[in-house]
Structures are given as C-alpha cells and as structure tokens.
C-alpha cells in the first residue's frame, strides 16, 4: 500500500537525497526571469509585433546601451538618485529626532498625534501643485517631495519603537546611573532601531515613487522626465529601458535593506 504525500508538502521526498538546481531559490528566481525574456523575444519575432507596442528584449538592450553610452541616462539616473536620497536623508535625521521627542514627551505627543492623523493618510502626490506654487520646480521642490514621502513612516515607526522599549531596560540604565539624555541615546534609540528601519523601508519606497512622479510632471532631467518624454515621442524602447533601470534600482535598494536587516538581526531577541 502506498501512502500519498500530504497536500502542500514543501518538497518532494527525493529532494533530500539528490540535489536539483530547481531547489535553489536563486536559480528559480533568475531562471524564471530569463525564461520570460526568451519567450517574449521569440513570440515577438514569430508574431511580428510592432516595436511601437512591444519592443523585443534585444531592442530594449540596445536602447539601454545607447542611452547609457551617449544618451545621458547616467545624468538622469544621478539626478533622480540625488533627489531621492538627499530628501530621504534629511527625513531620516529629522524623523528619528522628532519621533524620539514625540515618544518621550507627553505634550509633544498630544500635538503630534493630531497633525499625523491629519497629514499621514493624505496622498503626498496631491501636494505637488501646492509645492510647485511655493517652491517652483527646481531642487528645493524635489527635496521637499522626497522628504515628505519618507518622514511620516519614519516618525511613526520611531515613536512605535521607542514606546515598545522594555521598561526594565530603562530601569536598569537608571540603576547604572544614566541621565535622561543617556537613556534616550543609549537605551531608547538603540532599542527602537529595528522599528525605525521598518519605517526607513516604507519611507524610501514612497520617496522613490514621489520623486519619479514629480519628475514626470515637471522635470527636465531625471528618470521620470526621461520616461515621460520617451512616451510622448513614442520611443517605446526607451520607455522600457527606463522602466528596467527603475526596476533594477528597486532590486538594489531592497537587497541593501535586507543586508542591513541581517546585521540588525544579530542581537534581536528570538
């Protein structure tokens, strides 16, 4: 009598004895992407799809190489990265300090609760017209939009992290002679770091979206501007090329965050 494997079994039993490349998540991940690209290329050639609607991967690669080589995509990428990370960095510093203050001061918290409740759910993209009126369309506008995207998740998660600090640790620090400032800097802040980092993940994501969207609306340089312009003149290969750059940017940012998370996880309580 044979016993059928339970539904939902993670791996077939023979996987334990013989190694299959299909058990490696990296092989599966990259392999499936390459497979999709091959099918895409072959199908587009077979059915003769117009490059106006769907350029073949090989055509996109050519467009990418050209754009990077002489087309100024490097300048666009640099401008976009600068706008994202400068605004984000300011938001990180301000957001963490603000969060620490709100979490430790009863009054600051009462005031901030109202403002956060009012502003946090507001889609930040709706602020673009107002910010353009106030700041124009130059550097300060781009910094502001990136800053606004990141600051709320960072503040909220810092407050959360500090509030969840084990009161026993604060008592232990007081017992060892810590001043209120030392408690803030050496107990509350480090204990909130995993939570702050969760805010960083959310905030950086919103910053990227907002900066690219703002570039599409008003930018002359930047990935968003390039994307919009390419769409206007029906350069579909260029549209795809910029999308790929954005996707790769997303992958790099995510992987870097995973790496930081792994380091932070070193001391995290099981």
């Amino acid at each position, binding site marked *: 009598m044979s016993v059928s494997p339970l539904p939902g079994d993670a791996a077939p039993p023979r996987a334990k004895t013989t190694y299959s490349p299909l058990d490696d998540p990296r092989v599966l991940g990259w392999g499936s992407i390459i497979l999709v690209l091959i099918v895409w290329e072959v199908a587009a050639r077979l059915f003769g799809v117009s490059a106006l609607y769907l350029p073949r991967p090989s055509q996109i690669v050519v467009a990418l190489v050209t754009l990077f080589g002489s087309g100024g995509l490097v300048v666009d990428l640099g401008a976009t990265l600068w706008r994202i990370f400068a605004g984000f960095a300011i938001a990180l510093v301000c957001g963490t300090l603000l969060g620490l203050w709100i979490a430790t001061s009863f009054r600051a918290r009462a005031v901030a609760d109202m403002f956060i409740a009012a502003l946090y759910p507001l889609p930040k993209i709706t602020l673009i017209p107002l910010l353009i009126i106030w700041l124009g369309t130059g550097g300060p506008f781009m910094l502001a939009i990136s800053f606004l995207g990141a600051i709320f998740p960072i503040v909220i998660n810092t407050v959360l992290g500090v509030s969840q600090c084990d009161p*026993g640790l604060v008592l232990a*620090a007081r017992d*060892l002679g810590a001043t209120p400032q030392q408690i803030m800097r050496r107990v509350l802040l480090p204990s909130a770091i995993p939570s702050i980092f969760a805010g960083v993940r959310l905030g950086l994501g919103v910053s990227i979206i907002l900066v690219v969207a703002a570039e599409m609306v008003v930018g002359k340089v930047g990935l968003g501007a390039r994307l919009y312009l390419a769409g206007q003149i029906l350069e579909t290969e260029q549209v795809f090329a910029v999308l790929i750059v954005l996707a790769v940017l997303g992958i790099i940012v995510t992987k870097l965050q995973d790496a930081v998370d792994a380091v932070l996880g070193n001391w995290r309580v099981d």
Partner: protein
Amino acid sequence: MPAVSIEFDDVGLTFAPSSATPTVALEAVTCAFEPGEVTALIGPSGCGKSTLLQITRGFLDPTQGRLRFTALGAGNAIARPAMSTVWQAFNLFPWLTVFENVAFGLDLAGVPHAERDMRARRAIAAVDLTGFESRYPRQLSGGMRQRVGLARALVMEPEVLLLDEPFGALDAQTRLVLQEQLARLVETSGTTAILVTHSIEEAILLADTILVMTARPGRIAATIAVALPRPRSMATTRDPGFATLFDRIYGLLRDEVMRAMMSGEGQSQ
C-alpha cells in the same frame, strides 16, 4: 570603602492616596539592614518587597517616614550610597555584547577606557564568563545571562547591592549553582546586600538576617538571625539548624500567604 547600613524609620507608601481607592503598599516599616551583611526579605506575593527595594534605590519616594544611610564608623547619616540592582528579568541590553553590558555603567560614568576595560574583564572573570565577552545575551543560557547581570552590578563596586528575586526566572539546578556563587561573591565583597526572594531555602543559604513580611499592606512580621556557619552550600540544607529555621519561617509565611490568598491580593503581582 566603609560598609553602609540602612535604617527604615516608620516608612510607608500609599499609591494614589487622594483617590477613592488608595493602595497601601507598605505600612509603618521599621527595620535595619546591617553593614556588610546580607538581609533577605521574604513574604507573600504583592506584599511590597520590591516596593521596599525601589524605595531604597530612590526610584520611589515613601509617603511616610524616612530612610537613613550610615557609613560604618562615621556615625552621621550620609547621602544615598552607590547602589546597583540585579533584576529578576535580567534586563540586559540585547544589542550590546556581554562585555559592553558589563562596561555600560562605567562607560556612562566616564571611567577612562583602560580602567573600564580592566574592571569589566575582572568582573566577567569573577562570574566565570571569561571567553564569552563578545557574545550577545540571546546567545546565552538563563543562568549565564544572570551572571552577566551580577557582573554588571558588581563592576560598579556598589556599597549596597539590591537583589530583586535574582534567581526567580531560573530552573532549580541553575539556581543552586548561582546561589553558591553569589554567596561567595557577597561574602568577599563586603557590600551590604538586600535580597528579595520567594524561596525560604535561598533566604537561609544567603542571608545573615531574614525579614519576614506580612501580606499587603506590607509590614515586618519577624526578624530572624541566621547563625549557620559560612561558607554555606547545599550541605547546609542537611544541618539540623537549617530545618528548624525553615519550619519557623514557613510557619510565619503560611499564615500570611493564606491571608493574601483569601483577600485575593496574591494574584495582583
């Protein structure tokens, strides 16, 4: 460093005294903690043992009565002496290594690095944790974590050591080993120590004097001197003197625990 004694003079603490339901945690506690001795506080749950410790430490202010600290041989009252606490929940900083945890208090006080490192290493050696300096607390067993807690307190060279159910979270075997180790460390350091405990056995093994407390509101029901010879160990528990003491304290406690259970106060902590 002369040993410090602590006297409680009619100390009481009432939480929310002006509210409709004030909670009297401690009432008219008068007792003395002798210099260089270990005094155990034992009593039913919620009787205010830990509150008494917090008042001693200065984290809570009594609403009645006062405390007096005296340095041995000085006669006059002194300001609050240097104190360190060992906690039931260990309260180690999880993002710091063993070494950094032990050096934390010295670091805060701005002790020069060379001296800080030397003292931290010595304290780690005193609790037999040499070789584990760069581990994080989560990588250690419960017993090892509490030894870090002990080293972190002792490295400050406190004049008064406060032990708040230090072995309450440990299994029975680990507790025995640590009790012997703590007895040795306290005997040699000459510090005044206050031990809050639920365990009669632990109180007898470690203390020179045992204060038995009543159910809430906490008062001192009896002061019992432990005259058993030192060093004490598991062998001490077979001493006939141990059994006599154990029975006497158990008799006192049983009445109080029953009283606490009847009034439902035992569940409050």
